[in-house]
């Protein structure tokens, strides 16, 4: 099953299960979605529940949030999350904070979803990762699926959740196929929000990743295995809440940590994970945490520069080796 089909089926099932669920965004209806995630839904649910909007993110996001105040369960699609910046005040100030400011009167059951982060060759304005920004903000939940099972289980959970969820997809994964369990195809299937998944167990080094980078981390783990290094790969799934206990438990076992993300490094997801491990498992670390992230530059267009600007499998492998081989001399120096 492709991630696209996983997302599409999740939308379909939740719309069919709950008449309060509706989908709005640019080109989600007649065009079937800019990336065809909403294919067939207009036909099935009609224009009252699948709404094509003008290209006015602030306006339609505000309307979505208002509808959620009223008790509906909107799903707002951003054609990409870069455009969510036009509506970010509604995500942060109108959605995330209302339940708190109203002491629980105004809950905001809404999902903001769409592709996030780097695609291929789309340049600086269309490649930003918003995981860390949104996950900064209490009141939001932030999910980042990797596989088709993630996509299905997390999106269905997000739609059912009573709080605002930022759901960050990845364009380059839409067409990728993943094997899925029978259980995950059931319409009751949901994944828990706030729980990471150990994609591969290992004992020498922990690699955390989310979204597309989980695939890279798994590839790196394979290469590392050949060289005798057993890497544990954690698919974060949820950036907020962040599953600190799974991460720390793993690091307490492996004593080494590599964080991987495609976004900018400064104040990124890796920084938080590193800090969490320092806070909770300092004494367990045998080597400095290694952070792999997008280069600290706007995304260049040229293919060679772009490749240099996003993490590659070899970066993960190199960092893991460094972490493993370096522990002894460093300990001596300390």
């Amino acid at each position, binding site marked *: 099953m492709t991630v696209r089909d996983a997302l599409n089926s999740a939308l379909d099932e939740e719309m069919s299960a709950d008449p309060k669920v509706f989908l709005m965004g640019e080109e989600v209806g007649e065009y079937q979605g800019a990336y065809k995630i909403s294919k067939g839904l207009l036909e099935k649910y009609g224009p009252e529940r699948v709404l094509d909007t003008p290209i006015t993110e602030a306006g339609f996001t505000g309307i979505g949030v*208002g509808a959620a105040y*009223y008790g*509906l369960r909107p799903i707002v699609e951003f054609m990409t999350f870069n455009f969510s910046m036009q509506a970010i005040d509604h995500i942060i100030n109108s959605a995330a904070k209302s339940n708190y400011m109203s002491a629980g009167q105004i809950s905001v059951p809404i999902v903001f979803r769409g592709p996030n982060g780097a695609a291929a060759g789309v340049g600086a304005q269309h490649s930003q990762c918003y995981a860390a920004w949104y996950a900064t903000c209490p009141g939001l939940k932030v999910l980042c699926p990797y596989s088709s099972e993630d996509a299905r289980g997390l999106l269905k959970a997000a739609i059912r959740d009573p*709080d605002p969820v930022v759901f960050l997809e990845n364009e380059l994964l839409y067409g990728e196929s993943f094997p899925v369990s029978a259980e995950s195809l059931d319409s009751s299937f949901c994944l828990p929000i706030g729980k990471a998944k150990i994609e591969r167990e290992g004992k020498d080094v922990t690699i955390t990743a989310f979204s597309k980078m989980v695939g890279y981390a798994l590839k790196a783990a394979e290469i590392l295995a050949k060289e005798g290094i057993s890497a544990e790969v954690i698919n974060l799934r949820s950036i907020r809440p962040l599953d600190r206990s799974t991460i720390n438990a793993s690091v307490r076992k492996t004593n080494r940590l590599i964080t991987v993300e495609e976004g900018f490094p400064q104040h990124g997801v890796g920084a938080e994970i590193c800090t969490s491990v320092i806070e909770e498992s300092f004494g367990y670390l045998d080597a400095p945490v290694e952070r792999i992230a997008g280069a600290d530059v706007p995304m260049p267009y040229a293919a060679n520069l772009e490749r240099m600007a996003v993490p590659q499998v070899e970066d993960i492998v190199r960092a893991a080796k460094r972490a493993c081989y370096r522990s002894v001399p460093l300990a001596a120096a300390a």
Partner: protein
Amino acid sequence: DSRTITIETSVPFTAHQCDAPSRSVDTNPKELLTFFRDMATMRRMEIAADSLYKAKLIRGFCHLYDGQEAVAVGMEAAITKKDSIITAYRDHCTFLGRGGTLLEIFSELMGRQGGCSKGKGGSMHFYKKESGFYGGHGIVGAQVPLGCGLAFGQKYSKDGTVSFALYGDGAANQGQLFEALNISALWDLPVILVCENNHYGMGTAEWRAAKSPAYYKRGDYVPGLKVDGMDVLAVKQACKFAKEHALKNGPIILEMDTYRYHGHSMSDPGSTYRTRDEISGVRQERDPVERVRKLVLSHDLATEKELKDQEKEIRKQVDEAIAQAKESPMPEPSELFSNVYAKGLGVEAFGPDRKEVRAVLP
């Protein structure tokens, strides 16, 4: 006493892309007396809030509504609590109009448990969802798309109700308003955009912020009506008209010509960008409470003394509410971590020193 009295509005309505409603407004003694009581209560309440602020019992921002009472009261007279209202930070009186209590208001203003947001929201963030009040919003203009979203919910749910989104003359230039209006017009949402034109956005006169300060026309292809917002009956008439219009035809704009007596918020004396004459002129000639007082007297519905007594009674109620609010305790420390989420998933959240203060979210 509910015999019909018909009263002419102060000035005619000015219409844009629609036919104006009649200037003759039906009312009755009971309604007029209620108008007087409600507006006088709001007036007294805001003046008391001013004192509490100066006594440092209210903190931060505090935006007072005195002068604009006819808008909140007239609007309520035209609609029901199943209709929705959303407004900006100048929200105390709107909340009262929706059925909120003085005690909830003063408690919230002082950050106490008894507040309508349990002390967690503050002056700008009042809500009363069960009677259709959705805040209390601090970001200029943002409440307009939110209000259109409420209307979306009403239409989607086939509730037959409408939403009123209130905003100021300053907010009227916000782009998101035009975006939301276009969508509302495309989707025929039953929403009424109410521009409370008090002629200043903070210290900026309307014409310095808007090339076209004819706010009732700013919807361009959306109908609009200019209303004397100091005349509670005109407001009632316009809101009734607008509600009917919105249910049938989608969005409409009401520009309420009104005035705030106080400065923008407590840090603004309100006298550097307008003359004292201007303020006292409005007070003398257009005051919404006095206007109703005159109507009550001229129709012999009460004596001057009775109204004065009522005002004394209101003052007492306000003072009592304040006294009670002062007794309301500060929120429990545990409230710091409640309501972050509707469903906290049992996740840990942290205080400033996470090794000292952490809580499992409910």
